[in-house]
């Protein structure tokens, strides 16, 4: 799979709609290796420049600046993102482009099975991963039972656990009253 295909796959999977390679803004024609617009919750415009093909940086910089200007003139509020793929662009190029749009110089990341490096570059365009509610995920009793498996659980441990449902003071009280109950008969006998 080519780099461009991988980028396209990631973006379309994230809900971006591919534009034709040729599209117009207020009648002005533009051509990019790939172009996308965001789904209904966003209105980003994403263009992809294949630096392995377009080696003349001045030309594609001008094209992107032109697109940005056209959007401005059209009073569009669509944010523009340029993905520079295939090679590392010059610092000057990035700086120049950064004035008019978001630049993602993905370069030529390794072709990994999960495309982690590429995904990291594109992350800003992707929705946040499904959130995991971490509160209360721990089943403390089960975890504790696992730990105690070797030692086994007895009545005393059950009492401590019951007290733990309240707070540390309750556990401490259980500890102290257990010990108290053990020594009480001896003390009582002594005081008789």
């Amino acid at each position, binding site marked *: 799979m080519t780099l461009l295909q991988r980028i396209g796959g990631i973006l379309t999977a994230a809900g971006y709609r591919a534009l034709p390679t040729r599209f117009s803004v207020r009648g002005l024609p533009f051509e990019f290796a790939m172009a996308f617009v965001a789904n209904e919750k966003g209105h980003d415009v994403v263009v992809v420049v294949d630096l392995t093909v377009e080696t003349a940086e001045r030309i594609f910089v001008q094209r992107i600046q032109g697109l940005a200007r056209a959007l401005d003139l059209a009073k569009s509020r*669509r944010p523009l993102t340029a993905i520079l793929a295939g090679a590392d662009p010059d610092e000057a190029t990035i700086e120049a482009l950064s004035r008019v749009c*978001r630049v993602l110089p993905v370069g030529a990341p390794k072709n990994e099975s999960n495309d982690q490096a590429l995904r990291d570059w594109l992350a800003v365009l992707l929705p946040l991963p499904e959130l995991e509610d971490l509160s209360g995920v721990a089943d403390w009793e089960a975890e*504790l039972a696992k730990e105690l498996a070797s030692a086994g659980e007895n009545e005393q441990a059950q009492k401590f656990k019951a007290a733990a449902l309240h707070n540390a003071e*309750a*556990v401490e009280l259980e500890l102290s009253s257990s010990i108290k109950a053990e020594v009480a008969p001896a003390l009582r006998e002594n005081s008789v």
Partner: protein
Amino acid sequence: MTAVNLKQILIKNFRSLRGTVAVPLDASVVLLHGSNGMGKTSVLSAIELALSGQIAHLQRIDKEYAKQLLNREAEQGSISLFTRSDDLWTGKPEITINLTREGPTYSPLLYQEDAKFFSERCYLPQATLGRLLELYQDASTESTSQLTRFVKDLLGLDQLDALVDGLHPAFNVARVRNLVPEYRRFEGLVDSVNEEIGASSLNLQTAKTSVESDRREIADMLNAIYDKDVQAHSMLGDPQRLIAYVENDQADNAELLHLTSTRQEIQSLLKRWNDLPKDMGTEERDALEWEHGAARQRLEVWEKGDGQRLAAAINSLRDVFPDLPSSSASNPLDACNIAKVRAVEEKARCDRVANTSAAAAERVKALESELGKLRRRIAGRTTELSTLASDSSSLAQALAGIVPHLHDENCPVCGRNFEEVDEGPLSAHVSAMIASLTSQAGRLTAINSAQADDLNRRSVLERELLATQSGVLPPQDASNLSLRIAALAEGVAKLEALSATARIGSELMRAQNLAAERLSRANSRNEIAGQVASEASKFQQEWLQYLSAQPFATGDLLTELVSATTTRVTALRDREEKRRQIVRRLATYLDRLQQVARFEDELAKSRARLAELNVTSSHVLRIREEAKALSNAARHARTSIVGRVFNTALNKMWRDLFVRLAPQEQFVPAFKLESADGEPVEAGLETVHRSGERGGPPGTMLSAGNLNTAALTLFLALHLSVKNRLPWIILDDPVQSMDDVHIAQFAALLRTLSKNLRRQVIIAVHDRALFDYLALELSPAFPDDRLITVELSRNLAGDSLGTPTVTTFTADDSIAA
């Protein structure tokens, strides 16, 4: 998630805001712009105060910050916050806080737990952003760094913490003692029982030693008395029997008894001997004889002369008093005096009898005369009474009863006419008859009464007469009495005359008796001396073996005998005393043996008690071991839960966020969980290279911009770690030291939070270009999406102004395919 938008906030004279500023908040994104000092932070703080009741970052710096909330130039101020929903996020849809110099008074809109969540994970003040990493990692006190606390809050590890903390005392016996004072007392009890055992052992040892020495001592004592008595020695092991044996030893008793009485006899002999008068000479004895003879002669002369006369005088009275002592047999003077006294007394008695008799005779005469008169009067009355009708009184009454029936001259009794007798009218006749009868009756009564008196008097006199007659002596007796009186008078007179003679007789008799006694005593002395000597020689034979000398003089012999018997008695008593000593010694020996038994018993009891206490100790130890095991298990469980959650979920989220903002940074910040085995989890921060290698802490590995990014994304990751909590993200100038690339990425992230995750995002920025850029980037992208921008400034008077602009969605058709 429920869409709850904050709707509007009205702020009056709060901190740097002077006058009233209204900030609309009813949009998914609110952008606040203002140059420094225009009050951006004040607006955000006002929101925090209204929602949570505090301004956390000020609280950290100044506990008294509440008094500084009112604008310095104002007297009073207020904050009113309105929400668009009456959802149960908040207790009520709106709140108004009045500000005074003393601080605000109100209860916040959020419940306490939510307020805390808001302050920590919804609102990121500028002041906190710079310190966030530091803040989260700051563990000034054990396990209370905010990060650690966050971990615990997040995961609900309270139960495990409760186990770890609550069972903490079990690990150290000193803490157990503090926790359970009874345990301290119990340990004291164990110590004291141990001490008792030590003391009892020592006592037992000492007592046993004493018993041994007692035994030897008693054996020696036995030797002194029972040196040949094997039986006595054999009983040494049984002191009680030995005591009985020694106490019952009567061997010496009979001898001692005999010896004691013998000695008494000898002593009394010695006393008799010593009491004997001195043996006198023959001449002295003759004088006594002569003296006795002379006295005797004088007495005989007296007896033949005066004595005869005295005897005669006394004998003359012997008719009357046959028992009178004779003058010769007893003391003549006494005999004379006794006779005289008796005679005088008898004479006086006889005189009295004679006088009484005479008086009685007189009275008899008088009585007889009176009785004669009385008897004649009584006889006279008797004659008169016989003439008087005895029933005149009742007849008079009967006649009176007839009177009412007299109607004419016809008698109602006999029916005859009274006129026939011609003695006046019948009624007059009857009345005269009644009067006569009544007069007779009165006289009869008077005579009867007088007669009764006289009869009484007669019987009294007759009785007296009889009594008096008995007191009159018969004539024969009276004559004899006179003779006796005369004889007694004569006797008394004689004795009076002989009184002096009797005294002389008495003297003579006494002198003779004295001489006789002296003589007789002299005669008896030799007889006694002979008896004593004979007795003494008898004892001498008996005590021959004990005598040291054999004197012949009776006195010396007796003295020697006394001494010998005394020595023997002393020896026997000494043996007796020794036996008593043995018995006493045996008694204490017995006591000591019992003491040994008692100590052995005590020792056994103490040891048994210690064994019981040791069982209890082991139980307590078992509880502690169980507590420790559970505590350790809880610790491990906690570590493993925390580790799992952090390593899998949280770090993933943080990495994702961080990478979005800094795609080029090779070191990604991450939570690091340091936990030595068994120690509480301590969360820290580190960096991880994208290759998976671990780097140093963020502070040393990241640039200032990326540190800021790390902090920002940490905040967002923590915010996102809990679903369904509060839907607000409020950031105060979050972009510090960020280059344009990062800012663009950040804008995209904000957009995602707002558009995809439906958070209401409120951001204050001071940079104009950034503000414009964000306004563009965050502009509404779909219907109902809305952006509010507020420009904060001041008018010429210095009052704060808030100028809002609301941007709504408009379809963008600029791009055509």
